[in-house]
């Protein structure tokens, strides 16, 4: 049953598991005044408005930047270092473009290879049954928009043709970048999700590592939510 966004906001904040307008999250809830400091002006993307990120408030290390990077992975591969909360896009000349990300909280992290087989602008959010079982207040789905926890872009991760249930997407909780906050998804600043979307064609390789240099574990990812 669809519920409107305001109802969802009220419902979420009254039960205490979510931060404002957020997906069930391990990030510490912020008082509204503190949360508001993370947002800049309202901006528009493909006809939908969202709160821009106040990057002046963000630690520089979480912002998109070029870094030296030696890898045997081919150019264009997305490598995620879950422990250090970085996502890399491999460039030529031993360089990578690095983004800060939020990853799964304890018990929700996963490792291994995946592939972006689907991409979506302003994705609809459909909390999986497991997540709704944990958080019965969640709606069955939420259309793309300002308060949708997936943000303006989602890249859907598959392994051997099977949807892993995990996505790389934006966030309504910019303070959760650099933390273990999600239920397994890789979350980015909305501006970064928009940027990455342009750089990753369908078929892009994704590799999730515990830390850079760790052996590739292609463990069966337990699908447990977003």
């Amino acid at each position, binding site marked *: 049953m669809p519920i409107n966004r305001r109802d969802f906001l*009220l419902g979420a904040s009254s039960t205490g598991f979510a931060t404002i307008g957020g997906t069930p999250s391990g990030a510490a809830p912020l008082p509204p005044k503190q949360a508001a400091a993370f947002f800049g002006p309202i901006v528009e993307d493909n006809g939908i408005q969202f709160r821009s990120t106040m990057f002046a408030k963000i630690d520089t290390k979480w912002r998109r930047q070029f870094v030296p990077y030696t890898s045997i992975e081919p150019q264009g591969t997305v490598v995620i270092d879950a422990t250090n909360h970085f996502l890399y896009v491999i460039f030529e000349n031993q360089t990578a473009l690095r983004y800060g990300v939020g990853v799964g909280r304890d018990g929700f992290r996963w490792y291994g290879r995946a592939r972006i087989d689907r991409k979506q602008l302003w994705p609809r959010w459909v909390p999986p049954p497991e997540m709704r079982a944990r958080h019965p207040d969640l709606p069955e789905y939420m259309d793309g928009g300002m308060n949708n926890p997936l943000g303006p872009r989602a890249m859907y991760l598959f392994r051997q043709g099977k949807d892993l249930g995990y996505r790389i997407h934006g966030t309504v909780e910019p303070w959760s970048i650099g933390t273990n906050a999600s239920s397994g998804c890789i979350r980015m600043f909305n501006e970064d999700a928009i940027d990455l979307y342009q750089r990753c064609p369908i078929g892009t390789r994704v590799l999730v590592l515990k830390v850079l240099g760790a052996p590739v574990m292609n463990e069966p990812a337990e699908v447990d939510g977003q």
Partner: protein
Amino acid sequence: MNRFNRAAFLGMALLLIACSTSNKPDLTPTVPAPQAVPETGGVGAVAGSEQDFMLNVGRRTFFAQGSAAVDDTARVTIAKQANWLNANSQWQVKLQGFADDPGSDAQQMSLSQKRADAVRNELIAQGVSASRIRSKGYGHQRLVGDCAEIECKAQNRRVITNLQDGTQQ
């Protein structure tokens, strides 16, 4: 105002108690006017530099198998490139098209040239002077990754927008 925020904070802190009172925190924006130019989020590049272009715009435009059509995603990439080039007129561009698609070498050469020309036409439509743009197809060469899977081929079906310093021409 202060009192309201404190009340809202207490409302959150007490969580289960305050379920439907009116002082709920709500970030639904009250500022209506969208800003035209959001901050891009990248850090560490001088505005107008080649690194700025790579960091905040991106050099690569991708294409579907066998196609030189500019799809919705490619159009966004090219529009960002055009905006940047229009604001940084010191740069010229060399568009390099590539292919890793079904067909003979000659067909792939042709396809890669069509891809480069498609980006060129779109840049021109977005206001970049034709005199600043050169385009060339390289066919099935300079593969980013060489394998039969989409992981490799998707990366190869591309046009790279290379910046060239116009003052040195």
